[in-house]
């Protein structure tokens, strides 16, 4: 299955890091494009603004250190502040880590929220919380609540025909699934590392020995012998299968879908600028996908669980991220994509301000930094403050739900809308939280 992906991110608890390939692996909604257009038209008629917005979520699973990225505390005692120095960014008064120079140069295009706090220091439960907006009530083998990517897929569908609504790359992090919304709203996992030379999406291109014309004649033959009466199945599954079959043929034969995933069509020099590594090429592919009409893209960018040798790991990881992020910001701005695309960067928590005996930092949800870009929000600002040791918010304490409320605001999705879970309990898209006023203006 996902063994093609090579390295998995190791986390301290030793539990499986496999990409938790969801059975459904797909972000295609059951909706046809006509349905999407109809619902848009209905929205327009009801006077609600029609938004053509999309989201890129960069999920830094494991929990990235806030003190060593966006919220440095040079004045804190040595056992807190760590190895790195702050540098000035393009926005006066906002300093970031010295390992993030390209990001610093693009600071006017994004915003940092430095005062997000929550109480959950467990990987699985906090991931569920920050990927769905709901704290899990019990052990969480899988999604108890739908991920906001799934909610977006359900509410908005794909933005262009032939494309899936919700894509995860290279794979879907845990808690990315649709829960009671139905497997149709699970992410479509790309399933391969975009920085590999032979990168391609599984089963999207024709296998050896099969030509488009032969596929066409097979399709005709299938049609003539696939005659089981569809009415015998009142569950709609047979019709659903027919629809997916059609969609699959569309994707295999659609230039738009093929093009969206064909990273090698991208300018080689630009690919270099993003960085020829998993992070950089994933960000580039994410941009291609929203550009082509995907509504929600999750980039699984884990590996931040730095219990030991925090600084050594970050010396390797941060430059890769910096290169990719800085280029993504410049590239998206140049293409005019930031107006309608919200980019959200976070993990499940921050890390302990006090450095441990292994030169590492442990789990710390008391304060974390969240980065947002685009979506028509007010950029070039740092919102909130953590205290002197970056342990808790000092000013403007915010909770993860506020970030998500801001995201739904950008997407034009009513967070009060309810869906029934499997126990027929009505659950709001988001239980609490309100858009961050500094961002939405």
């Amino acid at each position: 299955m996902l063994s093609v992906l090579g390295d998995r991110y190791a986390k301290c608890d030793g539990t499986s890091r496999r990409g938790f390939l969801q059975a459904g692996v797909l972000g295609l909604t059951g909706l046809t494009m006509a349905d999407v257009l109809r619902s848009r038209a209905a929205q327009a008629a009801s006077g609600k603004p029609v938004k053509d917005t999309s989201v890129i979520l960069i999920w830094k699973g494991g929990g990235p250190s806030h003190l060593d990225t966006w919220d440095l505390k040079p004045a804190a005692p040595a056992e807190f502040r760590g190895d790195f120095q702050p540098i000035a960014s393009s926005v006066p008064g906002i300093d970031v880590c010295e390992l993030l120079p390209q990001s610093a140069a693009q600071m006017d295009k994004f915003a940092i929220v430095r005062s997000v706090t929550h109480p959950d220091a467990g990987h699985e439960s906090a991931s569920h919380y920050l990927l769905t907006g709901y704290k899990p009530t019990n052990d969480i083998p899988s999604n108890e609540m739908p991920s906001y990517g799934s909610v977006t897929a359900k509410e908005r569908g794909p933005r262009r025909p032939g494309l899936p609504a919700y894509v995860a790359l290279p794979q879907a992090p845990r808690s990315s699934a649709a829960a009671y919304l139905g497997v149709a709203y699970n992410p479509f996992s790309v399933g391969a590392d975009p920085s590999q030379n032979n990168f391609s999406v599984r089963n999207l291109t024709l296998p050896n020995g099969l030509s488009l014309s032969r596929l066409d004649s097979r399709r005709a033959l299938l049609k003539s012998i696939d005659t089981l009466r569809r009415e015998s199945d009142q569950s709609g599954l047979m019709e659903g299968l027919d629809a997916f079959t059609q969609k699959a043929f569309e994707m295999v034969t659609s230039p738009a879908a093929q093009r969206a995933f064909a990273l090698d069509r991208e300018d080689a020099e630009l690919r270099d600028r993003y960085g020829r590594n998993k992070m950089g090429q994933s960000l580039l592919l994410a941009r291609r996908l929203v550009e082509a009409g995907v509504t929600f893209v999750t980039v699984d960018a884990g590996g931040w669980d730095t219990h030991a040798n925090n600084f050594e790991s970050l010396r390797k990881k941060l430059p890769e991220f910096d290169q990719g992020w800085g280029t993504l910001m410049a590239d998206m701005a140049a293409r005019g994509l930031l107006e309608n695309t919200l980019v959200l960067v976070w993990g499940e928590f921050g890390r302990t301000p006090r450095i441990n005996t292994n030169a590492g930092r442990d789990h710390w949800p008391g304060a974390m930094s969240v980065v947002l870009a685009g979506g028509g929000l007010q950029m070039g600002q740092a919102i909130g403050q953590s205290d002197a040791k970056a342990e808790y918010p000092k000013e403007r304490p915010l909770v993860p739900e506020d970030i998500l409320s801001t995201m739904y605001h950008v997407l034009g999705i009513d967070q009060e809308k309810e869906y029934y879970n499997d126990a027929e309990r009505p659950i709001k898209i988001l239980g609490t939280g309100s858009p961050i006023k500094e961002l939405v203006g």
Partner: protein
Amino acid sequence: MPMRWSAWLAMLVWAFAAGPSHAANSPAGAEQLLHIEPAAIVLEGSEARQRLAVVAMPMTAAGKVDPATPTTDCTLAAKYVSSAPGVASVSADGIVTPHADRTATIEARALGSVARAQVTVDRFAQPRAISFRNQIVPIFSRYGCNSGGCHGKQAGQNGFKLSLLGFDPQFDYGALVKEARGRRVFPAAPEQSLLLLKASASVPHGGGLRIKRDSPEYSLLRRWIEQGALAGSADDPQLMRIKVWPQAAVMARHAQQRVIVRAEYSDGHTRDVTHEAQFKSNAPQVAGVDDEGQVTTDDGTGDTAVMARYLGHVDVCRIMVPLASAGGQWPKLPAGNYVDRLVEAKWKQLKLAPSPLCDDATFLRRVFLDTIGTLPTPEEVREFLADTNPHKRAAWIDRVLARNEYADFWTAKWGELLRNKRRTGREAQRGTYAFHAWIRNAFASNMPYDRFVRGIVAAQGTVDQHPPVIWYREVRNLVHQTNDTAQLFLGTRINCAQCHHHPYEKWSQDDYYQFQAFFARLGRKSGESAAEPAIYVRPDGEVFQPVTRQLMQPRGLDGPPVVVGDDEDRRQKLVDWMAEPSNPMFAAAICNRYWAHFLGRGLVEPLDDMRVTNPPSNPPLMSALAEDLLKHHFDLKHLVRTILNSTTYQLASDPTAANIDDEQNYARAYPRRVMAEVILDAVSQVTGTVENFGGLPKGTRAIQLPDESIGSYFLDVFGRPQRETACECERPREANLAQALHMLNSVELQSKVSAGDGRIAKLMKDKKPSDEVLDELYLAALSRYPRADERRTVLAYVAAQPNPRLAWEDLVWAMVNTKEFLFNH
């Protein structure tokens, strides 16, 4: 045998109180009986109200109420007159209001006939002290104040928290009377109480206007505060049960029925609580219900339960909506067995004509896939079709049950439910292999089901001593043990009651934690490695109810208290209780699970959510299956054989005009998507290839995989579960895009279809004529000969292709992509 289900049998006929009623002639001329409910009414206090219902019931020629013909609810059409409006008045919609102590008679006229109800008004001016628990709390439920979306949620709302749905009146009393410095209730000036000001929106209230100032509820709340906002005493009458009227009704399409809910108290008095109760229909497409208990049918036919819920008590009204006229031809079907007589009785009630019997080829394929997860070979299909034994279906069922794949297939299914899971730990493999082998032996030897369950639930020792201790590796804490045991073996989801009274059931937190107490003394050490639990019984360990903090004695759900000696394993007592013939849940749960497996839909659906408010679609069949299994000492092969030999199982899936909308009464077979492992094995078998599973011997089939960890994109994309829950719902049978892409356009499928040593390659090497190749491929993939039109189409296709071998590959590719292949139909 005392079975709870048998109570439902009784509900299928109208039960009504004796009361003055008259025979009447309907406009259509048929004899009808006009009935008023309730016929005797006692109204206590000024706020009491009573809803009336008036129905016309058709009579048979013998002068009895005809239970199969729809009744007509005349409640809203009837004209009402009170003999003494100063004592009790009646509104046009049939609601009686008291005015003074004495008696009165209410007359209802409809369809040219009269029915009368006697009313007694009591204590109008000197009502008893209001009971907080019995009268005030229900108001909060009725108006949604204590719902999970408002003050009932964990954190409350704006600083005011009530217990969820009013299950903890003591807590609610404290919140109202003792918190907020007494501002919420203010006996000195009741109208100034925040409770009334907020609820009536006299001051800004996030929840808006809930209770109008001129409503009986407002008056009751005001009077309660005026009386001093008393908590009530332990002597207050206890709510014993609620009773819904009618218990069952046969309704026409596009019709209405008023439902009345009566609360019965420990002191014998009763009260109409329809207005305060909450209602829910299990199948709104058959019959919907509104907040006031008005049931409405639409176009749909079939049956459903309408649930009423009031202060933690529930009751249901079963609604049946038959087809207007006996639709379609009633086919001539073989007699079958007892299953068929009970299923047929239901068809007759609903006037639902079944589809005919399926043909032999479909039967064979269906039995093979459902029972052993394996396609029949072309040779087997030929042999079966040529078999002239008039009882060949029964004979082949026995033949299939004797196959080795029976154990493989059911081990795959149970390994999933028993969460035999390796995760990624290499050291965990020894345990999953051992548990897998134990389960397989159980099915190979047809171990009685009660012994099988005892082996798991009461597992003790190390993996080497007793492999099922592995069950406790995933089911590792008390919560898992409680929930999984109830869901898996008793078909009951009690997890809601972990935190609060189950909203749709009677299960309380006491029930939950008493059940949990069976596991309180389970001890766990590391076995051979940290990944292997060794299970032992500890000498101590107790469970305390988290709210009352009381020590919980072990007790089965609805069971008697269990006495366990200090040297005994509580879990043995648990299994004793489960497997007792008088326990209605255990045998029914497994019968329902198997029925759902073979028929595509449980008698109770979801199959592991059996509760009073979710009754089986065919209660007599549910109890007959359970009794039969008990009689046969939990012999699972007997259960399977009974189902397979029934005519019901052997019906065609092709719908008729009469039964096309049937989704719950088995008037035809419901096609089901074949499960992931079986599809993969079937694709391998059809193409004549073997799938390689890493680390396992060549030729291992997907249904033989010991655990979830063996990598296979095919299996994952088709919904192989990760064994994270005990719920069959973890295995999605839905369609998805990645599946479609894999079947249509993957290297894997293409290489199977074109394999150099595969089925097509062999057929080509043997230089078989096209007609024979065609037969062979159809028999292999679809377990039947091609029809004449298919023969023409395919042979023409092959003739038109330059390379016949590639053309045959195209055919196999197309066949495994048909719905006929992917579904068991």
